[in-house]
C-alpha cells in the first residue's frame, strides 16, 4: 500500500497542474443607464465609493412604502478609513435588510486588480452580496 502511494504521489504531482484557475463573475454598471431598483426591501441601494483616503459607504433607505418599486429614499453615508470597517458597516446594513444582495462598488483609478479582487471576494464570500456591480472610476 505504501509502495503504491509512493508511486501515486509523484505521478500525481507530475501530471496535474498546480495552478488552479477560477473565474470571478463581473457585473458592470451601464455607462449611461439610470438606476432601476429591483429590490423592494427597506434598503434600496448600497454603494461603496473608494477615495484616495479611504471609503465612502452610502445607503439609500426608503422612508415610505417599502413595497413600491422606487420609493422616497433618504441617503445615509459613512466615511471609513479601512476595508475592515467597511465590512463591519455592511454587516450592520445587512441586519437592517438581509434580502438586499446587490451592492455597487466604485474603485479609484489607482486601485489595482488584486485589491479589487480581494474586495469582491470578501463581499461575495464573507457577506453574501451575490451581485456586486462594478462602476467605472470617476
Amino acid at each position: 500500500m505504501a509502495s503504491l502511494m509512493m508511486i501515486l504521489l509523484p505521478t500525481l504531482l507530475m501530471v496535474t497542474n498546480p495552478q488552479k484557475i477560477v473565474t470571478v463573475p463581473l457585473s458592470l454598471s451601464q455607462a449611461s443607464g439610470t438606476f432601476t431598483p429591483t429590490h423592494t426591501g427597506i434598503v434600496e441601494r448600497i454603494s461603496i465609493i473608494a477615495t484616495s483616503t479611504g471609503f465612502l459607504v452610502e445607503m439609500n433607505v426608503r422612508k415610505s412604502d417599502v413595497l413600491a418599486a422606487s420609493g422616497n429614499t433618504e441617503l445615509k453615508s459613512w466615511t471609513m478609513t479601512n476595508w475592515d470597517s467597511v465590512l463591519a458597516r455592511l454587516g450592520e446594513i445587512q441586519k437592517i435588510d438581509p434580502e438586499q444582495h446587490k451592492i455597487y462598488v466604485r474603485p479609484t483609478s489607482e486601485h489595482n486588480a488584486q485589491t479589487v479582487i480581494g474586495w469582491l471576494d470578501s463581499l461575495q464570500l464573507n457577506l453574501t452580496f451575490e451581485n456586486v456591480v462594478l462602476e467605472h472610476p470617476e
Partner: protein
Amino acid sequence: MNLFSHRTQRTNGLGVATLAPMVDIFTILVIAVLKASSPQAPVVLPEGSMELPLSNQENISVEHLVVDIAKEGIYVDGFRVTAREYWEQSEDILISEVYSSLQQHAKKDVKIRVDKDVPWSLISKTLHTAQQAGYEDIEMLVISSSSL
C-alpha cells in the same frame, strides 16, 4: 539462527508501527494534491512576467475568448492588439483596437486575464469596451488561493 530470527522479528515490528501512519500521511498528501491541483492544461500567458491576481473563488473556468492585459500590451485571443501604457494614460474609455478585434470574434462571452498590478481604470475601460462590443457574459480569470 537465533540472531536471524531476532532480526526478522524486529523488522516486522518496526514495519507495522511505521506503515500505518505512513499510509495515512500519503493518503492525506494525495487528497491535498488532488484538491489543490487543476485538471486543466497549464496557463500560457502572453508575457512571461505577467502574474494573475489571487482569489478565494471556487468556480472552475472554461476557457473561451480571452482578453489579456499584461505588463506591456493588451492581447485578444493571444494576439497583441495595442500597448498598455497608451491606454492607461488615455482619457478615452473605449479601447478602439480591442473593440474591433472583439467584434470580429462575434461571441457572447469573454474572459479577462489581467496582471495583478494593472490599475482598475484600465480594467474598467476593457470591461466597458467588451460590453460595447456586445459581450454579455464577462468574467475575470484569477488563480485560486488554494493552488499549490
